[in-house]
């Protein structure tokens, strides 16, 4: 593994793994405590529509996927703020329609020029310098938001009705969490792919939740745990020549199993 680090692509992969894992740990915590896991899955799959559009119009993939995912997040936010009990129906709908749009636009694109599998299951060895800037920028934004707006986010996540009565702009923060989730999902597509991203957003969070007694510590602990899983997963992937995204998820799941076996609730 050490000798592999002299290659640019391997350095990029490691750096991307760390940046994305940290972002996924923090945002994953917010997704889990707000019970929005299904919602995040919906946004992840919907972003495929953005990939299809970007391919068709010759735009950068990251840009297309980001815009489309953020659009989906805003749409879901608008729909679910009023009718929260119908949330699952809307998400299921947007989930499938997004994927369908993506498939159709890839069909319409002359010549088969993209490796679709890499978006579904990740391609961490193909991270460009530009991608790294995007990831670092997003992580910086997420860190700034959760540090300076921590108490608002905490209030909205714990008890949104009460937060509203105390003058917190619930609509804004709910939408903000969704938009940040959408962007995190898009950068995580590079690392684990849009199908596997949901595991990255939930497994480290589940372990961290058991070990922390505040949302703040939970966010950073799950960031650290996600990073560890990603690095171990990458090592497996490199050593045994396996798909990186799937390796990361299997390492995470196996660790979760081990954790549950060893950890007894007090």
């Amino acid at each position, binding site marked *: 593994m050490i000798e592999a680090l002299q290659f640019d692509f391997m350095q990029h992969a490691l750096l991307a793994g760390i940046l994305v894992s940290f972002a996924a740990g923090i945002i994953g915590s917010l997704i889990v405590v707000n019970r929005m896991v299904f919602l995040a899955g919906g946004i992840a799959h919907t972003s495929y529509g953005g990939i299809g559009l970007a391919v068709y119009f010759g735009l950068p993939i990251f840009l297309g996927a980001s815009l489309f995912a953020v659009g989906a997040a805003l749409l879901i936010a608008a729909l679910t703020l009023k009718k929260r009990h119908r949330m699952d129906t809307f998400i299921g709908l947007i989930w499938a329609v997004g994927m369908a749009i993506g498939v159709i636009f890839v069909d319409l694109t002359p010549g088969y020029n993209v490796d679709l599998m890499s978006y579904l299951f990740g391609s961490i060895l193909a991270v460009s310098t530009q991608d790294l800037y995007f990831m670092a920028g997003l992580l910086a934004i997420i860190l700034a938001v959760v540090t300076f707006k921590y108490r608002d986010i905490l209030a909205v996540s714990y008890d949104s009705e009460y937060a509203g009565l105390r*003058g917190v702009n619930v609509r804004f923060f709910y939408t903000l969490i969704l938009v940040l989730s959408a962007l995190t999902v898009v950068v995580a597509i590079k690392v684990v792919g849009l199908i596997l991203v949901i595991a990255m957003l939930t497994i480290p969070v589940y372990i961290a939740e058991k070990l922390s*007694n505040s949302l703040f510590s939970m966010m950073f602990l799950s960031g650290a745990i996600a990073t560890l899983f990603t690095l171990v997963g990458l090592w497996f992937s490199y050593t045994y020549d396996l798909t990186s995204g799937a390796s990361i998820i299997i390492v995470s799941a196996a660790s979760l199993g081990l954790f549950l076996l060893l950890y007894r609730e007090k």
Partner: protein
Amino acid sequence: MYVVEIKNLCFAYEKDMVLENINLTVGEKDFLAIIGPNGGGKSTLLKLILGINTSKTGTVTVLGKTPTQSLTQIGYVPQNTNVNTDFPIKVIEVVMMGHVEGKRPLFGYGKHEVLCAMGALKQVGMADFAQTKIGSLSGGQRQRVMIARALCAHPQILILDEPTSSIDITGQREIYELLKVLNEHITVIVVSHDISVILEYANKAAHVNKTLSFHDISDKHSTFHTHGNDEHFCEIELLQMLGSENCDTCTSTGSATDDTSDTSTSSVNDTNLSVAEPVEAKIKWRLKP
């Protein structure tokens, strides 16, 4: 000045009327119990007082202003505080959510906010649990924390929606004893099903089932029949007293209870009492002979 004043209020979520022609006044340091059947509009009425719901017909005035303007003066303890118990949050953090927006540090919580939250926790007897994870508390303890959160903003009115619905009997009594102490300084409005408990503590009662019947019950000894024990009120007396449709039959239901509990069953006095506030139905109830 009334703390809460509702005039000719009607409310409907969609087509069907949930509340019709509601008139209600709550004075300073009143302890008002709102009772009534499920779906009768109790929670809706609370939400109108809190300004979560707004109605086009009728007016709601809280402390002389609209509910939204007075929101910072109202402490609210919502229903169902047992949801989200897995949430990784410490007791003190929950209480500090009660602070009204205002001067606050860029990062984390201010020192005065922590002190104020600790003060509120002391008031409800939960100061020792400040650093505990909220999920590891019992239902009654969690309810106390929610009351502390409401007290954090130093409210003039404390509104509680079914505060004891998931707490055992001892816990319920403790909560009401706490409310009694708090009531010495602030107005308390409680929605509850535990009518037998609540009437010991409340001095006003409102029965809400689409329409509202108001009762001044501050002088319990003269208006209630009790079973020899001064502290006991059971649902039957209450239903006699409040349910207007039961009035015609209250003599018969009344004597049925007397058979089991009271030796002097023969003479039952039906008396018309005028209630402090306008009530459509004249309510008959019995005085203890």
